[in-house]
């Protein structure tokens, strides 16, 4: 049997040439961030305890460099040839776009962490930063994967790191519970995803994006293999829907987000979502593009259920982290509109919205970090009463972030929504219903976002909040807050640049169809 397999594998000279040529330069961000894990772990061993504060700076610099390195990333060619490492990695404009989002957010979160960690009293900072960097590496690799093997390994790389990070608070039951739930459910969902990949592999004979797409373009869902393809797509959708936290696969989200340390919550809410949306863009409109009639109805229903469910669940929340996590669920629904509408505008709008979602969510979570107390106090919405008297700047930043999340112009959140809803209307047909549901649920969403704003500005705290004595955030956290809020407003007002870029990045979707090699 093995000999028969070997007989089918023909190796040409061209293949050998390609094997000899490895485009190391295309993975600069991964080298820096992934190598950074080792550097930080080593530094943690070497540095004396008094010098440990350096670790956060080392990892910040490495992650920032990793994000920046995407600009000298070796992007071999554009269009059909933009894959490297034997078609396993896509090195194109979208990879760069996502490197900035994912690695940039990780860098900012690293920068925001020391203040939080010292307040909570975490000692093992070396592991913390190493794991954050590992997670960031995995997230980025997920966005550049052009092969399901890379996809799977990257997914597990950041998931494994996040399991530990969620349970990182040593004395917190909630944190442990968060880590455990995430671990159990994510592994469970990963199994479905893997099974889906196996089925697709069985049908198409490959796990490479380009080859699968080529197969589907030729054969669609004809024959017995078509059954495998359909079931495979369904199972893969389970994995995706779990990670993007679409209803009804969302249930882990609030518990995990609430229990995890707040910077990690932010990393999950932003980084994971950005990575998975990018993967969504590469896999669904790209790989499964030829059979879009099959998966679009699925995502259509998921998007509607997610928008309604996420917003409805958020309405009566009292814990701000839970509220923001349900808001993340709701935003997953908005993002999926962009996937279903699937035209030029929706793709670039989706990437733009992702960028906007990144900055506004980061701003909101950074404020939560700054307000949270050492034992996890200050997370109730009622604790935000009168915040504008204690911390006027924090209240202002939170207001802008929430307005943006609610989609009030001229913040970036409005333009993101405008493009996605506009794309849905443009694509016509039933997709207009998506835009309608989106707008109506946005109105509901405004209600719970405004609840926080009203608390901050008009309500009087019933008693002295436990967190009233928390001082001003440290300079590094202040920097993160500033970046996030400037991004929220700036991307809204001066979005031209970001839009153009998103447009370029989105242009590569679905172009990986190559039949290189055999």
């Amino acid at each position, binding site marked *: 049997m093995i000999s028969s397999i070997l007989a089918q594998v023909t190796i040409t000279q061209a293949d050998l040439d390609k094997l000899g040529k490895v485009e190391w330069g295309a993975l600069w961000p991964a080298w820096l961030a992934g190598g950074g894990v080792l550097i930080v772990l080593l530094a943690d061993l070497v540095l004396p305890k008094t010098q440990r504060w350096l670790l956060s700076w080392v990892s910040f610099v490495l992650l920032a460099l990793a994000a920046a390195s995407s600009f000298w990333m070796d992007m071999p060619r554009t269009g059909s040839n933009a894959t490297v490492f034997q078609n396993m990695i896509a090195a194109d404009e979208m990879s760069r776009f996502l490197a900035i989002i994912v690695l940039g957010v990780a860098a900012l979160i690293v920068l925001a962490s020391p203040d939080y960690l010292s307040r909570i009293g975490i000692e093992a900072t070396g592991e913390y930063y190493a794991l954050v960097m590992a997670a960031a590496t995995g997230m980025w690799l997920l966005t550049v994967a052009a092969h399901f*093997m890379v996809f*799977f390994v990257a997914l597990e790389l950041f998931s494994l790191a996040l399991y530990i990070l969620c349970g990182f608070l040593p004395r917190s*039951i909630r944190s442990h519970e968060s880590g455990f739930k995430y671990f*159990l459910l994510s592994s469970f969902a990963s199994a479905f995803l893997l099974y889906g990949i196996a089925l697709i592999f069985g049908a198409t004979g490959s796990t490479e994006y380009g080859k699968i797409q080529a197969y589907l373009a030729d054969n669609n869902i004809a024959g017995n293999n078509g059954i495998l393809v359909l079931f495979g797509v369904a199972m893969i959708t389970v994995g995706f829907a779990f990670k993007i936290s679409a209803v009804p696969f969302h249930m882990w989200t609030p518990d995990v987000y609430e229990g995890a340390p707040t910077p990690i919550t932010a990393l999950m809410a932003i980084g994971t979502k950005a990575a998975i949306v990018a993967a969504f863009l590469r896999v669904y409109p790209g790989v499964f593009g030829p059979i879009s009639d099959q998966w679009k109805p699925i995502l259509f229903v998921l998007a509607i259920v997610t928008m309604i469910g996420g917003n409805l669940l958020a309405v009566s929340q009292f814990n701000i982290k839970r509220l923001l996590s349900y808001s993340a669920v709701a935003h997953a629904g908005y993002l999926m509109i962009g996937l279903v509408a699937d035209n030029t505008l929706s793709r670039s709008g989706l990437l733009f919205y992702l960028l906007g979602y990144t900055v506004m969510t980061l701003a909101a979570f950074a404020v939560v970090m700054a307000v949270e107390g050492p034992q996890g106090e200050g997370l109730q919405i009622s604790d935000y009463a009168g915040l504008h008297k204690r911390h006027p700047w924090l209240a202002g930043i939170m207001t802008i972030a929430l307005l943006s999340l609610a989609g009030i112009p001229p913040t970036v959140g409005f333009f993101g929504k405008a493009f996605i809803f506009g794309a849905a209307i443009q694509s016509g047909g039933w997709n207009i219903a998506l835009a309608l549901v989106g707008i109506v649920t946005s109105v509901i969403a405004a209600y719970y976002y405004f609840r926080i704003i009203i608390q901050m500005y008009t309500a009087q705290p019933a008693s002295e909040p436990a967190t009233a004595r928390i001082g001003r955030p440290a300079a590094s956290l202040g920097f993160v807050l500033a970046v996030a809020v400037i991004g929220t407003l700036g991307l809204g007002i001066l979005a031209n640049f970001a839009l153009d870029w998103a447009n370029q990045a989105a242009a590569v979707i679905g172009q990986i169809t190559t039949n290189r090699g055999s």
Partner: protein
Amino acid sequence: MSSITIAMVVSALVFTIGACGVLLRRNPLVQFMSIELMLNAVNLAFISFGGANGSAEGQVFVLMVLTVAAAEAVIGLGIIVAMFRRRRRMDVDDIKVMEG
């Protein structure tokens, strides 16, 4: 029935058994073993498809899955032990501080 069909049926059965195990058992260790069972069902599918397609990718993928599953086992056991040290009782249904 061809061999691939048999392999697929077995794989699907094992996968379902694993999924049911996760849902029905309340001991986290057993749940985790059930997840491993699901992964192995996937492995079986990969190998048999790889054989049918005449492609080595399936086999390579299995190695990847095994490696990742091993890493997952380490982390999972770590988390479970950490929880066990605080709780002294192994029942996932007790782990519900956060809800709603």
